[in-house]
Protein backbone atom coordinates (compact mmCIF):
# COMPACT_ATOMS: atom_id res chain seq x y z
CA UNK A 1 0.00 0.00 0.00
CA UNK A 2 1.50 3.33 -0.95
CA UNK A 3 0.56 6.28 1.23
CA UNK A 4 1.27 9.99 1.06
CA UNK A 5 3.24 10.50 4.28
CA UNK A 6 3.05 14.27 3.90
CA UNK A 7 -0.73 14.14 3.81
CA UNK A 8 -0.80 12.15 7.05
CA UNK A 9 1.76 14.40 8.72
CA UNK A 10 -0.61 17.33 8.40
CA UNK A 11 -3.04 15.44 10.64
CA UNK A 12 -0.60 14.36 13.36
CA UNK A 13 -2.37 16.44 16.01
CA UNK A 14 -5.78 14.91 15.51
CA UNK A 15 -4.28 11.41 15.18
CA UNK A 16 -2.76 11.86 18.65
CA UNK A 17 -5.91 13.39 20.15
CA UNK A 18 -8.11 10.51 18.98
CA UNK A 19 -6.85 7.76 21.34
CA UNK A 20 -6.77 10.23 24.26
CA UNK A 21 -10.55 10.70 23.95
CA UNK A 22 -11.02 7.29 25.58
CA UNK A 23 -8.30 7.26 28.22
CA UNK A 24 -5.02 8.86 29.31
CA UNK A 25 -2.01 7.38 27.61
CA UNK A 26 1.74 7.69 27.12
CA UNK A 27 3.89 8.12 24.05
CA UNK A 28 4.77 4.53 23.30
CA UNK A 29 1.23 3.25 23.86
CA UNK A 30 -0.19 5.84 21.47
CA UNK A 31 2.40 5.04 18.83
CA UNK A 32 1.86 1.31 19.22
CA UNK A 33 -1.89 1.73 18.83
CA UNK A 34 -1.25 3.62 15.59
CA UNK A 35 0.96 0.78 14.34
CA UNK A 36 -1.57 -1.89 15.26
CA UNK A 37 -4.47 0.01 13.71
CA UNK A 38 -2.59 0.52 10.44
CA UNK A 39 -1.14 -3.04 10.39
CA UNK A 40 2.41 -1.64 10.62
CA UNK A 41 1.89 0.57 7.56
CA UNK A 42 2.41 3.74 9.59
CA UNK A 43 4.12 4.85 12.76
CA UNK A 44 5.19 8.23 14.11
CA UNK A 45 8.82 9.02 14.74
CA UNK A 46 9.58 9.87 18.36
CA UNK A 47 10.63 13.38 17.36
CA UNK A 48 7.38 14.00 15.46
CA UNK A 49 5.33 12.58 18.33
CA UNK A 50 6.95 14.77 20.96
CA UNK A 51 6.95 17.93 18.87
CA UNK A 52 3.20 17.37 18.55
CA UNK A 53 2.84 16.73 22.31
CA UNK A 54 4.62 20.00 23.06
CA UNK A 55 2.46 21.88 20.56
CA UNK A 56 -0.78 20.38 21.89
CA UNK A 57 0.21 21.05 25.48
CA UNK A 58 1.10 24.65 24.73
CA UNK A 59 -2.21 25.26 22.97
CA UNK A 60 -4.06 23.75 25.95
CA UNK A 61 -5.42 20.65 24.19
CA UNK A 62 -3.68 18.20 26.51
CA UNK A 63 -2.14 18.04 29.98
CA UNK A 64 0.72 15.83 31.11
CA UNK A 65 1.68 14.21 34.39
CA UNK A 66 4.22 11.66 35.55
CA UNK A 67 2.71 8.30 36.39
CA UNK A 68 3.87 6.54 39.52
CA UNK A 69 4.65 3.03 38.36
CA UNK A 70 6.06 0.95 41.15
CA UNK A 71 8.44 -1.06 39.05
CA UNK A 72 11.26 0.70 37.23
CA UNK A 73 9.96 2.70 34.30
CA UNK A 74 8.63 6.17 34.95
CA UNK A 75 6.14 7.25 32.28
CA UNK A 76 4.69 10.59 31.38
CA UNK A 77 0.97 10.36 30.74
CA UNK A 78 -1.11 12.70 28.63
CA UNK A 79 -4.76 13.53 29.18
CA UNK A 80 -7.08 15.45 26.92
CA UNK A 81 -8.68 18.71 28.08
CA UNK A 82 -12.15 20.00 27.33
CA UNK A 83 -10.63 22.33 24.74
CA UNK A 84 -8.77 19.31 23.33
CA UNK A 85 -12.06 17.47 22.81
CA UNK A 86 -13.53 20.47 21.04
CA UNK A 87 -10.44 20.69 18.84
CA UNK A 88 -10.70 16.99 18.03
CA UNK A 89 -14.34 17.34 16.96
CA UNK A 90 -13.54 20.39 14.85
CA UNK A 91 -10.53 18.75 13.15
CA UNK A 92 -12.51 15.55 12.53
CA UNK A 93 -15.29 17.59 10.91
CA UNK A 94 -12.73 19.45 8.79
CA UNK A 95 -11.18 16.18 7.67
CA UNK A 96 -14.55 14.67 6.70
CA UNK A 97 -15.40 17.71 4.62
CA UNK A 98 -11.97 17.81 3.00
CA UNK A 99 -12.07 14.09 2.23
CA UNK A 100 -15.47 14.44 0.62
CA UNK A 101 -14.30 17.38 -1.44
CA UNK A 102 -11.12 15.65 -2.63
CA UNK A 103 -13.19 12.56 -3.51
CA UNK A 104 -15.42 14.74 -5.67
CA UNK A 105 -12.48 16.59 -7.24
CA UNK A 106 -10.56 13.45 -8.09
CA UNK A 107 -13.52 11.51 -9.38
CA UNK A 108 -13.60 11.70 -13.18
CA UNK A 109 -16.87 9.85 -13.85
CA UNK A 110 -19.21 12.76 -13.33
CA UNK A 111 -17.26 15.13 -15.57
CA UNK A 112 -17.15 12.59 -18.39
CA UNK A 113 -20.89 12.32 -17.97
CA UNK A 114 -21.23 16.10 -18.36
CA UNK A 115 -19.02 16.16 -21.45
CA UNK A 116 -21.19 13.57 -23.12
CA UNK A 117 -24.27 15.66 -22.45
CA UNK A 118 -22.79 18.82 -24.04
Amino acid sequence: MSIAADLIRGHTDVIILAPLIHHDSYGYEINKAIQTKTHHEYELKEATLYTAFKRLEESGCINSYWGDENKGARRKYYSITHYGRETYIRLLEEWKNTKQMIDILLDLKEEQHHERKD
Partner: protein
Amino acid sequence: MKERIRRYIESVFDQAPKTKQAMELKEEILQNILDKYDDLIAEGVSEEVAYNNAIASIGNVDELFDTLQMQMDEFYQYPAYELDKRRQRSAAIIALAVMMYIVSFIPVILFDDSPIAICMMFLIIALATGMIIYDQKTKIRHPKLDMMQEYEAWQEKHDDTKKLRRAITSCMWLIITAFYFWISFTTGSWHITWITFLIGSAIEEMIKALFDLVRRRDL
Protein backbone atom coordinates in the same frame (compact mmCIF):
# COMPACT_ATOMS: atom_id res chain seq x y z
CA MET B 1 22.36 -3.58 24.72
CA LYS B 2 20.06 -1.41 26.83
CA GLU B 3 23.10 0.47 28.06
CA ARG B 4 23.99 1.10 24.42
CA ILE B 5 20.53 2.58 23.82
CA ARG B 6 20.91 4.78 26.89
CA ARG B 7 24.30 6.00 25.69
CA TYR B 8 22.93 6.73 22.24
CA ILE B 9 20.03 8.82 23.62
CA GLU B 10 22.46 10.68 25.88
CA SER B 11 24.58 11.58 22.85
CA VAL B 12 21.51 12.79 20.91
CA PHE B 13 20.53 15.04 23.81
CA ASP B 14 24.01 16.59 24.01
CA GLN B 15 22.67 19.05 21.42
CA ALA B 16 19.56 19.91 23.45
CA PRO B 17 19.35 22.97 25.69
CA LYS B 18 20.04 22.04 29.30
CA THR B 19 16.62 22.54 30.80
CA LYS B 20 14.28 20.51 32.95
CA GLN B 21 11.97 20.10 29.96
CA ALA B 22 14.80 18.60 27.91
CA MET B 23 15.77 16.24 30.74
CA GLU B 24 12.20 15.06 31.11
CA LEU B 25 11.90 14.63 27.38
CA LYS B 26 15.06 12.53 27.37
CA GLU B 27 13.64 10.28 30.05
CA GLU B 28 10.37 9.95 28.14
CA ILE B 29 11.96 9.13 24.81
CA LEU B 30 14.46 6.73 26.39
CA GLN B 31 11.60 4.85 28.03
CA ASN B 32 9.70 4.63 24.73
CA ILE B 33 12.75 3.35 22.86
CA LEU B 34 13.39 0.74 25.57
CA ASP B 35 9.73 -0.35 25.38
CA LYS B 36 10.02 -0.67 21.64
CA TYR B 37 13.26 -2.63 21.93
CA ASP B 38 11.65 -5.03 24.46
CA ASP B 39 8.66 -5.55 22.18
CA LEU B 40 10.87 -6.31 19.20
CA ILE B 41 12.90 -8.82 21.24
CA ALA B 42 9.66 -10.44 22.40
CA GLU B 43 8.66 -10.79 18.74
CA GLY B 44 11.82 -12.82 18.22
CA VAL B 45 13.93 -10.21 16.42
CA SER B 46 17.70 -10.37 16.92
CA GLU B 47 19.28 -7.87 19.36
CA GLU B 48 21.17 -6.02 16.64
CA VAL B 49 18.10 -5.58 14.42
CA ALA B 50 15.96 -4.57 17.40
CA TYR B 51 18.55 -1.96 18.41
CA ASN B 52 18.71 -0.50 14.90
CA ASN B 53 14.92 -0.43 14.53
CA ALA B 54 14.42 1.19 17.92
CA ILE B 55 17.07 3.84 17.29
CA ALA B 56 15.75 4.55 13.80
CA SER B 57 12.32 5.36 15.25
CA ILE B 58 13.69 8.47 16.98
CA GLY B 59 13.72 10.47 13.74
CA ASN B 60 14.90 14.02 13.32
CA VAL B 61 15.05 15.85 16.65
CA ASP B 62 16.06 19.27 15.29
CA GLU B 63 12.55 20.70 15.29
CA LEU B 64 11.93 19.35 18.77
CA PHE B 65 15.10 20.95 20.16
CA ASP B 66 14.16 24.20 18.40
CA THR B 67 10.90 24.28 20.34
CA LEU B 68 12.81 23.83 23.60
CA GLN B 69 15.23 26.57 22.59
CA MET B 70 12.34 28.90 21.72
CA GLN B 71 10.83 28.51 25.18
CA MET B 72 14.15 29.68 26.58
CA ASP B 73 14.46 32.62 24.22
CA GLU B 74 11.02 34.10 24.89
CA PHE B 75 12.47 36.22 27.69
CA TYR B 76 14.42 38.33 25.24
CA GLN B 77 11.21 39.51 23.61
CA TYR B 78 10.66 41.93 26.50
CA PRO B 79 11.68 45.44 25.39
CA ALA B 80 14.87 46.65 27.08
CA TYR B 81 13.36 49.81 28.60
CA GLU B 82 10.64 47.76 30.26
CA LEU B 83 13.27 45.55 31.89
CA ASP B 84 15.24 48.62 33.00
CA LYS B 85 12.19 50.19 34.56
CA ARG B 86 11.39 47.01 36.43
CA ARG B 87 14.97 46.67 37.60
CA GLN B 88 14.97 50.22 38.97
CA ARG B 89 11.68 49.71 40.76
CA SER B 90 12.96 46.49 42.27
CA ALA B 91 16.17 48.17 43.46
CA ALA B 92 14.14 50.96 45.11
CA ILE B 93 11.89 48.47 46.91
CA ILE B 94 14.82 46.42 48.20
CA ALA B 95 16.74 49.51 49.34
CA LEU B 96 13.69 50.80 51.21
CA ALA B 97 13.09 47.41 52.82
CA VAL B 98 16.69 47.14 54.02
CA MET B 99 16.47 50.68 55.38
CA MET B 100 13.31 49.72 57.28
CA TYR B 101 15.08 46.71 58.79
CA ILE B 102 17.81 48.98 60.13
CA VAL B 103 15.38 51.67 61.31
CA SER B 104 13.16 49.08 63.02
CA PHE B 105 15.43 49.13 66.09
CA ILE B 106 14.97 52.85 66.69
CA PRO B 107 11.67 52.62 68.65
CA VAL B 108 13.18 49.96 70.93
CA ILE B 109 16.23 52.12 71.59
CA LEU B 110 14.16 55.29 72.11
CA PHE B 111 11.42 53.88 74.31
CA ASP B 112 13.51 51.39 76.20
CA ASP B 113 11.82 48.03 75.51
CA SER B 114 8.23 49.12 76.10
CA PRO B 115 5.73 46.64 74.59
CA ILE B 116 4.53 49.31 72.14
CA ALA B 117 8.09 49.84 70.88
CA ILE B 118 8.56 46.09 70.36
CA CYS B 119 5.25 45.92 68.51
CA MET B 120 6.37 48.79 66.28
CA MET B 121 9.64 47.04 65.57
CA PHE B 122 7.85 43.86 64.47
CA LEU B 123 5.39 45.89 62.40
CA ILE B 124 8.22 47.59 60.51
CA ILE B 125 9.99 44.25 59.98
CA ALA B 126 6.77 42.67 58.73
CA LEU B 127 6.21 45.54 56.29
CA ALA B 128 9.77 45.31 54.98
CA THR B 129 9.48 41.54 54.54
CA GLY B 130 6.17 42.01 52.75
CA MET B 131 7.80 44.44 50.35
CA ILE B 132 10.62 42.01 49.54
CA ILE B 133 8.15 39.20 48.90
CA TYR B 134 6.06 41.48 46.67
CA ASP B 135 9.17 42.40 44.70
CA GLN B 136 10.13 38.75 44.23
CA LYS B 137 6.66 37.76 43.09
CA THR B 138 6.30 40.53 40.52
CA LYS B 139 9.73 40.09 38.96
CA ILE B 140 9.92 39.29 35.24
CA ARG B 141 11.25 35.82 35.43
CA HIS B 142 14.30 34.95 33.42
CA PRO B 143 13.37 31.66 31.72
CA LYS B 144 16.93 30.59 31.01
CA LEU B 145 17.96 31.10 34.59
CA ASP B 146 14.63 29.85 35.78
CA MET B 147 14.87 26.65 33.83
CA MET B 148 18.35 26.03 35.13
CA GLN B 149 17.14 26.57 38.66
CA GLU B 150 14.10 24.47 37.96
CA TYR B 151 16.34 21.75 36.60
CA GLU B 152 18.59 21.94 39.63
CA ALA B 153 15.60 21.86 41.92
CA TRP B 154 14.31 18.87 40.03
CA GLN B 155 17.65 17.10 40.35
CA GLU B 156 17.73 18.02 43.99
CA LYS B 157 14.37 16.43 44.55
CA HIS B 158 15.81 13.16 43.30
CA ASP B 159 18.72 13.44 45.65
CA ASP B 160 18.11 11.79 49.00
CA THR B 161 21.01 13.40 50.83
CA LYS B 162 19.66 16.86 49.99
CA LYS B 163 16.27 15.80 51.30
CA LEU B 164 17.94 14.84 54.56
CA ARG B 165 19.79 18.15 54.68
CA ARG B 166 16.57 20.10 54.17
CA ALA B 167 14.90 18.15 56.95
CA ILE B 168 17.78 18.85 59.31
CA THR B 169 17.94 22.58 58.54
CA SER B 170 14.20 23.17 58.82
CA CYS B 171 14.23 21.30 62.12
CA MET B 172 17.16 23.43 63.25
CA TRP B 173 15.35 26.66 62.42
CA LEU B 174 12.33 25.60 64.46
CA ILE B 175 14.57 24.89 67.44
CA ILE B 176 16.43 28.20 66.95
CA THR B 177 13.15 30.15 66.86
CA ALA B 178 11.86 28.38 69.97
CA PHE B 179 15.16 29.03 71.70
CA TYR B 180 15.03 32.71 70.71
CA PHE B 181 11.64 33.25 72.31
CA TRP B 182 12.50 31.21 75.38
CA ILE B 183 15.76 33.05 76.11
CA SER B 184 14.22 36.42 75.30
CA PHE B 185 11.24 35.99 77.58
CA THR B 186 13.26 34.51 80.44
CA THR B 187 16.12 37.02 80.32
CA GLY B 188 14.19 39.97 78.84
CA SER B 189 17.29 40.92 76.86
CA TRP B 190 15.51 41.47 73.55
CA HIS B 191 18.17 43.92 72.46
CA ILE B 192 20.79 41.16 72.13
CA THR B 193 18.93 37.83 71.76
CA TRP B 194 18.32 38.35 68.03
CA ILE B 195 21.90 37.21 67.63
CA THR B 196 20.46 33.67 67.89
CA PHE B 197 19.41 34.04 64.24
CA LEU B 198 22.91 34.94 63.14
CA ILE B 199 24.16 31.85 64.92
CA GLY B 200 21.39 29.89 63.17
CA SER B 201 22.61 31.08 59.78
CA ALA B 202 26.14 30.09 60.67
CA ILE B 203 25.01 26.61 61.69
CA GLU B 204 23.04 26.25 58.44
CA GLU B 205 26.11 27.12 56.38
CA MET B 206 28.11 24.63 58.41
CA ILE B 207 25.59 21.88 57.74
CA LYS B 208 25.68 22.74 54.03
CA ALA B 209 29.47 22.59 54.00
CA LEU B 210 29.47 19.29 55.86
CA PHE B 211 27.08 17.72 53.35
CA ASP B 212 29.13 19.02 50.43
CA LEU B 213 32.23 17.53 51.96
CA VAL B 214 30.60 14.11 52.38
CA ARG B 215 29.22 14.19 48.84
CA ARG B 216 32.58 15.09 47.35
CA ARG B 217 34.20 12.22 49.17
CA ASP B 218 31.57 9.88 47.73
CA LEU B 219 32.23 10.97 44.14
